[in-house]
């Protein structure tokens, strides 16, 4: 018995051969098939997957709210930071772009214009950043419990939406202070934000899958996001900055069709008096809906396609 330091596959030299059962090839698979066992860890069909997700809806919302409250629970001011952080953000941008660089030139109601842009952009940017960490930052959870993995990017997108609702509270205060009073067009904010949320969720699911396979993506996203932000007219009006004689009309149109710019401009159109429909690209609602549906559905299917591989080292 002491000589058992031999190579592991070698049969153990005990009296009873029963202690290392040998199975014929295919014998176990046949046994499993005979009793109707299913393959563990196989990817469910898309329909079954959606049903599973629906079954976990309470977990998704609880996880989102838990993440949101856990965020500032160590701070002395606690949940006040939910509204302070976006306000401070807007102040910094106002100081740099409004006062120092004077980009407000030619933009009426610059403060509401800027603050709307920053908040709406932050919603997309932070959803994408959260998406890159949805799987790679929760490997422990993915390896310990069984649930449809799309719960994670969706929960994080919901957390960003909740965060945005706090920001909107701050935004409405700012709008009132700068003389923008509620009017019927404010209701357009609801469909605009719904479409944007769908777009964000889709993109963050794509990022979640990419970053789960290649963690380096998380290092790259800040740079891509910053480039995207400056190209989306968050702190300046693309219309007044890029006039047709300086930039070909086609480039300007491409810039205006970029989803972030579309969602930002829709919110400005909804909330700010002096931002008129003339500043919106043609067929703006169709563009907004197309981006939302293509990215939302496409991102979901793309994420589901790798369902069984998440959590693998």
């Amino acid at each position, binding site marked *: 018995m002491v000589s058992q330091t031999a190579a*592991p596959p070698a049969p153990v030299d005990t009296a009873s051969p029963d*202690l290392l059962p040998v199975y014929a090839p295919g014998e*176990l698979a046949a046994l499993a098939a005979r009793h109707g066992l299913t393959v*563990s*860890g196989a990817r469910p069909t898309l329909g079954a997957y959606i049903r599973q997700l629906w079954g976990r809806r309470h977990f998704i919302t609880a996880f989102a709210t838990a993440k949101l409250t856990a965020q500032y629970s160590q701070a002395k001011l606690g949940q006040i930071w939910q509204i302070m952080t976006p306000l401070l953000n807007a102040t910094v941008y106002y100081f740099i772009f409004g006062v120092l660089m004077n980009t407000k030139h030619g933009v009426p109601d610059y403060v509401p214009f800027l603050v709307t842009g920053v908040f709406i952009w932050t919603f997309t940017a932070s959803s994408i950043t959260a998406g890159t960490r949805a799987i790679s930052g929760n490997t422990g959870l993915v*390896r310990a419990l069984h649930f449809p993995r799309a719960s994670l990017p969706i929960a994080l997108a919901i957390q960003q939406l909740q965060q945005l609702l706090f920001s909107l509270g701050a935004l409405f205060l700012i709008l009132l202070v700068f003389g923008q009073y509620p009017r019927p067009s404010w209701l357009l904010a609801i469909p605009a934000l719904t479409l944007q949320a769908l777009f964000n969720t889709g993109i963050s699911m794509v990022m979640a899958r990419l970053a789960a396979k290649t963690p380096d993506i998380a290092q790259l996203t800040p740079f891509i996001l910053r480039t995207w932000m400056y190209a989306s007219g968050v702190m300046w009006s693309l219309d007044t900055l890029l006039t047709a004689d300086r930039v070909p009309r086609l480039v300007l149109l491409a810039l205006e069709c970029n989803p972030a710019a579309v969602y930002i401009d829709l919110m400005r159109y909804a909330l700010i008096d002096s931002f008129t429909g003339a500043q919106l690209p043609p067929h703006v609602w169709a563009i907004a809906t197309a981006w939302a549906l293509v990215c939302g559905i496409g991102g979901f299917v793309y994420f589901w396609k790798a369902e069984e591989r998440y959590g693998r*080292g």
Partner: protein
Amino acid sequence: MADTLDTRVPTVVVDDVHITYTVNGARTGKGSATSALNRIVSRRQPRGARQVHAVKGVSFAAYKGEAIGLIGSNGSGKSTLLKAIAGLLPPSKGRVHTQGQPSLLGVNAALMSDLTGERNVVLGGLAMGMTREQIRERYQGIVDFSGINEKGDFITLPMRTYSSGMGARLRFSIAAAKSHDVLLIDEALSTGDAKFQRRSKDRIMELREEAGTVFLVSHSNRSITETCDRAIWLEAGTLRMDGPAKDVVAAYEEFTGPAKSGKPRK
């Protein structure tokens, strides 16, 4: 054994399962950023990344009513195999067939230390797939079982303020609140003080009766022989022995040497 195969109902069938990890960041040096980018683009296996072959072709069938202990020295692939049975770590070769959805006993990863114990009970329950009603029904039972409130109202404090023992007790109580068809337990018996350990052992016995099949990974040979009727011995990712718990544990003790036997190692 072969003649009884057909009369028993299998719950877990592990068919020639291999599990390989790819470890990034364990490079031996060399390899520029551009070549790394090239590998990402071309989807080739990174040259520097190491492949860890944790489980090498394990086959066995588990039946309804069995309690199976998994033994073997550290790094022999026990926990990895358990995760593959749970469907959490896909095998690179071979298949795991199961009856229903096997679950690991453990919710640690779902809990957040910044939240109160109260909210963690709800979050953990939801993460395990319980409904809100089930959690509401069992909430008091979970809190009482953990004994968190025995020394004051601790359940309304954030979990980061708990002592490590208190945290472990609450985590076990949440995890053990749900019954499963196939239950996988990884070293769960070693949490808390002596009183709590006795209580958790009783709870595992209960879970065993409710569940169809139980797998237990432990370094304590005593808890294997006490709770399991069958044992599987893994060594370096291969199946070394599979049979009655008493015989397998005896052979394993012989292998590890008498000095280490009976002493639970972490």
